[in-house]
């Protein structure tokens, strides 16, 4: 192509008035021909654009995430938990023999006794403390001479 028409195209290119076809022509011209010095900048620019277009995405694209596996695991774990609680109930806690019941009642009585003992002693302590308090009040009245 003549230099004249290239220069005209370049002016249009700078004003963003060129069509894609004309731009392809320019790209072609600057990649093949030896370019006059006053248009050297365009050669750099167009070469850069053609080079940029060759760059490719090389990594793989994972469409499924690892989270799905964890999701399944959590469900499996919860099912296992429910089943284990269910079977433990079946096996152990429902069958209480009469002798075991008696033992439990005995233990209950013993603990009640122990608690009552503790509460009695606590009440004693409280009474002593209250009497001590009244002594203190007497002393206070003496000091302030009511």
């Amino acid at each position, binding site marked *: 192509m003549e230099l004249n028409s290239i220069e005209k195209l370049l002016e249009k*290119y*700078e*004003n*963003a*008035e060129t069509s*894609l076809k004309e*731009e*392809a022509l320019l790209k072609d011209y600057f990649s093949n021909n030896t370019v006059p010095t006053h248009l*050297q*900048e*365009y050669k*750099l*620019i167009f*070469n*850069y*654009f053609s*080079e*940029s*277009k*060759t*760059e*490719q*995405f090389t*990594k793989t*694209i*994972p*469409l499924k*995430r690892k989270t799905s596996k964890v999701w399944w695991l959590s469900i499996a774990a919860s099912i296992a938990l429910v089943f284990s609680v269910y079977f433990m109930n079946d096996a152990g806690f429902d069958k209480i023999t009469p002798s075991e019941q008696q033992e439990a009642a005995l233990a209950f009585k013993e603990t009640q006794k122990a608690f009552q003992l503790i509460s009695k002693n606590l009440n004693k302590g409280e009474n002593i403390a209250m009497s001590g308090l009244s002594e203190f009040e007497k002393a206070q009245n003496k000091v302030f001479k009511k």
Partner: protein
Amino acid sequence: MKQAEFLNTVLPLKDKVFRLAKRLLVSTDEAEDATQELYFKLWKNKKKLGEYKNVEAFAMTMTKNYCLDQLKAKRSNNLKLVHSNYADDTISLQRELELKDSVSKVHQLIEKLPAKQKMIIQLRDVENYEYDEIGKILDLQPTAVRVALSRARKTIREQLIKQHNYGIK
């Protein structure tokens, strides 16, 4: 949209998505992460994808929005490394060095442009989209696209000439 359709229509866009992401995010690693994230999102919404008339424009818009969000989050602020590994073993070493130098010069100049002009340059001059397609992707009027593009092209050339004549004039 089914898997086969997805593979045929959306997957071939991966290079374009990656290049736009890299233009905005600068670092290759960030761009790769962004591309993977975007494809995961697209895949999750594959049922809705069939409703869009222009899936390509939709994917590119998503890329733009995602990258701008990333930039806003300033997560990528400490990753300002410029990668220019343009592999080409056909030309001689000196020629390659020369080319790399000048090519990365243009790269740096584009990097200094505002985000909008960057995206338009990328979409028009690298990916060769039509003006109204770019308008759809970036949600702009085609005339606004032309104005910004013209401004960007002029800036790049003026800066190149300035650098070229540095110390001479």
